[in-house]
């Protein structure tokens, strides 16, 4: 058992903890509009996997930039696509 194994084990435990947290919180009475926050623990878990099992920190620099690029473009896709439904005046809202 070397350092690598120890850190992998910690990552695994962290992931299990986050998953349990996510699962548990989902039973709370969160209003429908806010329930997408349940994705937050998952984003944390994704980051843990990328940094831990996928060893992003020790990856070549361009690999890091690709990972950041992928996330950036995902944000563009989600962000710009949602500007339309979020601002569509299906009914003229009175201020």
């Amino acid at each position, binding site marked *: 058992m070397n350092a690598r194994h120890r850190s992998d084990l910690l990552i695994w435990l962290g992931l299990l903890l986050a998953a349990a947290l996510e699962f548990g919180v989902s039973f709370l009475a969160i209003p429908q509009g806010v329930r997408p926050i349940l994705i937050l623990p998952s984003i944390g878990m994704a980051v843990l996997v990328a940094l831990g099992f996928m060893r992003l920190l020790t990856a070549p620099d*361009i690999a890091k930039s690709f990972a950041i*690029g*992928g996330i950036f*473009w995902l944000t*563009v*896709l989600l962000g*710009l*696509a949602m*500007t*339309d*439904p*979020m*601002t*569509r*005046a299906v009914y003229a809202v009175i201020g």
Partner: protein
Amino acid sequence: MSQIVLPQSQISYLSDGVSLRSWLLTTDHKRIAILYMISITAFFFLGGSAAALIRYNLIVPEGMIQSAETYNRLFTMHGIIMVWFFLVPAVPVTIGNFVVPLMLGARDLAFPRLNLASWYLFMAGGFCALYALFSGGVDTGWTFYTPLSSNYAQGHVVVVVMGIFISGFSTIATGINFIITIHRLRAPGLTWYRLPVFIWSLYSTSIIFVLATPVLAITLLLLMFETLFHVGVFDPKLGGDPLLFQHLFWFYSHPAVYIMILPGLGVVSEIIPVFARKELFGYKFVVWASVSIAIIAFFVWGHHMFVSGQSLFASVLFSMLSYFVAVPSAIKVFNWLGTLHKGRIRFDAPMIYALGFIGLFTMGGITGLYLAALAADVHLHDTYFVIAHFHYIMVGGMVSAYFAALHYWWPKITGKMYPEMIARAAALLMFLGFNLTFFPQYILGYLGMPRRYHAYPPEFQVLNVLSSAGATILAAAYLLPLFYLTYSIFRGARAPANPWGSLGLEWQTPSPPFTKNFVVTPTVTEGPYAFSKHETFDV
């Protein structure tokens, strides 16, 4: 640059095995480029024949082709083949595949087997699409808007969409290959700012390949699901939003427009300094313009949806972002003019194509401003104005650039010179025929003729006949290179290593190059267009 020594044992890539097997199982980027070139030429003339039939139909107001259904299938086939099986792959997979490693001083792409696999994927996708298009066709237009495509269209929507889906992975693979190669396999001394602009433009193109194509792929999968089961996430009958499909589709297809033009911009930036014998004006601005086009391209897709029912806020936002993407294109045009200034301009065929490109690209670009201006777009949207606009960019721009590149690198690729005078004549004819075909369509669109009409009100006839007449000239101009380039393979004069006096690394190895490109990996000590330091090089 280091002197190249030619040992007798080095043989050209063309003579390194002549069997069919040695071609079909090759991992040599140069041979794969040739495979692509053959396939793409076939697709180009196939798509072109459909275009010819479209123009034939529109000679008379009621349509020369009896059935509207046939006409609809024809323009759908024209769009699908030209966009996905010619324009998107054209320059990157043929010229790019051939010259990228040579320009970098590398011996191959980073992943040669992936490169071959991408050709097979491309062909598999191509055959899927061809099978669908010939065994009944599809009448959705190349944009596949739902719910028309999923619940109302006739024909093999699923098969043709499958074909595009598969070939999409071929372009993703090519994009990954190029980006990694450019990062990892540059010759010693070849710093980022010493890279030829063509490499920068392919790098930018590859960013779009890798990051936009997957979104198309998932969109098409959702579309296939909906078409097969007549239920899905785009279905307005379930309360779904018909605009979701358009958002996802244009997230890919708008950047794809830049896939289709960025390599062209690179080719022209490569050719103009060589034939003006002068350093490229504003090199850093030109390369960063390419990169910023590739990035901003992702922010502007909503300008295809100004009349679609998208929110007012989104329309205004996308209109503003669209103007931002036009700025780098303008920068490039000004820099080419700056390069011509005080040059020693020669008029070989590649240069004539390149100069024609500048003119047509500027015309296409400037009419893009009309479509980005919201109120003007309301009138011009979905009319022939749009058709003229994007054909000026795609055909006037990209196809001209493809021919420019083909002529410029032809001696390197085949080891033979093409017949110069007839090539110049073809270039001029193409410019004339193109303008005659497409300029009347700007006016038609302004007068209100909608796209994709099999029949039209009689007052539009004169302009349509003009356009069809131009198309005849254009068709002849496209057929010419097919003949004289083929002829030159067999009967052309032997090409020297560097017929144009270029300074790029690809010209430092014989024509045609060795199988492994370079005997000694070259070392680079200066920028790609340092003509002022090489006055004696003038030819």
